[in-house]
């Protein structure tokens, strides 16, 4: 780091160049930009550049290991006429919407449960967060085995519990596969909502509840008129983050179903991977990936504005 040695320099014996160097570095603007430069340059090179390069790629017919040909919006036109692409749009929205509702409801319930006084609360919190911190691909293979067509423990429990007569193919049937993904994503993501909402709940002063109780508010009323308004900002931020990242989810789906059976669980990211990487059509793949941009950009803009206002 170039800033270090120069700025530690003792007061210069002669008021010459070292003093002005130090003086320069000590200026707020100069020091700030010296500090920022490495990180900002890195992000420009490895986030901003790929982003714009991706837009450029999406306008080309570009295969791996060959020159690209500029084709304008042809890739997007092809996608617009592709039934699989529209199925992917529907799948993604279903996946994002349903998991968000479930995670929000489950997370709120989890937060309300842990927010009570009991022994071992910190331990419970630590254990409940485990699904979120363990590498997703690894917990997903455990779910693959739990949902195995022949040896599924869920089937075993349902059959031996007398609920069904023969096991389901959880990942082999089109609609069951989507629901399986939703369950696994919800399992993994609920603790994130639960623990962050818990932090929100803990900021509520007990006085507020007492005041509400004195005024004769029921439990439900206290929840609606005290709890919810206080945690609303946390609720909104957590949900927006989660929606943005669920839109970009890849590994859970790739590991569990690869988008199958028959595209039933393909989402933007897995389709882009199949076309761009497996089939080597970089241009078309980039176009698929970019198609989520409008929805995502809207979300990101709303969230950024909201965060800056907070």
């Amino acid at each position: 780091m170039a800033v270090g040695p120069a700025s530690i320099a003792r007061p210069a014996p002669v008021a010459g160049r070292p003093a002005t160097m130090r003086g320069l570095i000590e200026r707020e603007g100069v020091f700030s930009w010296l500090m920022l430069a490495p990180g900002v340059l890195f992000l420009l090179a490895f986030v901003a550049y790929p982003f714009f390069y991706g837009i450029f790629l999406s306008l080309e017919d570009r295969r791996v290991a060959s020159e690209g040909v500029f084709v304008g919006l042809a890739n997007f036109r092809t996608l617009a006429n592709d039934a699989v692409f529209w199925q992917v749009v529907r799948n993604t929205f279903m996946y994002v919407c349903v998991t968000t509702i479930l995670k929000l409801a489950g997370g709120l319930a989890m937060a309300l449960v842990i927010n009570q006084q009991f022994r071992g609360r910190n331990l419970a919190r630590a254990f409940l967060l485990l699904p979120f911190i363990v590498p997703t691909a690894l917990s997903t293979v455990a779910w693959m085995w739990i949902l195995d067509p022949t040896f599924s423990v869920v089937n075993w429990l349902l059959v031996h519990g007398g609920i069904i007569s023969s096991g389901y193919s959880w990942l082999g049937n089109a609609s069951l596969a989507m629901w399986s993904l939703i369950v696994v994503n919800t399992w993994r993501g609920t603790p994130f909502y639960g623990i962050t909402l818990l932090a929100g709940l803990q900021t509520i002063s007990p006085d507020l509840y007492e005041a509400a109780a004195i005024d004769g508010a029921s439990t439900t009323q206290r929840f609606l008129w005290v709890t919810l308004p206080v945690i609303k900002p946390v609720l909104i931020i957590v949900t927006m983050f989660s929606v943005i990242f669920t839109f970009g989810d890849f590994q859970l789906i790739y590991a569990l179903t690869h988008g199958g059976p028959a595209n039933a669980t393909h989402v933007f990211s897995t389709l882009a991977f199949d076309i761009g990487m497996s089939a080597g059509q970089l241009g078309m793949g980039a176009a698929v990936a970019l198609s989520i941009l409008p929805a995502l950009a809207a979300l990101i803009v709303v969230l950024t504005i909201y965060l800056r206002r907070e």
Partner: protein
Amino acid sequence: MVGGRDFFARLRRLYLPLAVFVVLGLFPFYWMLITSIKPNRELYSQKIMPLVVHQPTLKHYVDLLTETNFLTWTYNTMLVAVVTTVISVVLGTMIAYPLARLRFPGAAVVAIGVAATYLVPQPLLFIPMADIINRLELGNTLTAVMLTYPTLLIPFSAWLLMGYFKSVPRELEEAARIDGASRWQAMTRIVLPLCTPGLLSAGIFAFTLAQNEFLYALIFLAKSEVRTVPIGVVTELIRGDVFYWGQLMAGALLGSIPVAIIYSFFVDYYVAGLTAGAVKS
């Protein structure tokens, strides 16, 4: 009688729902564990009750460690996670510090830019990134992931640290400056030590996210010797034949342990990080 009613109320509002969350949350881990120590004849029989182990064995672990590259993958994962964590926390600090504490031209643009890079999801970038890594001839090297993981981790670390840096009173720094400390000294000797919890949070988070990364590793690391644990487990331990589940679960469990250990030591810092910035999942 009143005590009894209290107990039932508590059972209904606390213990029962808590038990449901714990059982649902932890069952997959229990299942990983018992699958990994069951002999094959128990695993692949529909007659034997599957919820417990009848004759435990360590065969799957021995096979995993001797017949596959699991140890190499573990080494790769650790190396990449440590290097990218250090890079990300250092560069994240250098971005967050001026943004949080100094006034300079362009601050607003940089702040918005960092927030935007934090929110841009990976699927939007991986295809152009693959082409860039190819052109740099970095395919099948750990350098490829060491260069790309920080794109996810730096914005997050910067975001998280800004909050901590803002919380240090300005007077402390000013007093040091009046005593002749340079800006660099004021930062490294006054502000950063006070923000140790924030640096720990950022580091632990970056480390777990690096261990969790999948997409870039999948694209850039096609040779077994350079793979990370998640990629190795998903691409190599899932094989054509059916009888691989014991080894697969052993791999999944062992691969989860480093993160779980770090997490168990620093759970409070982890939760602080989680709630400070909401997190990329």
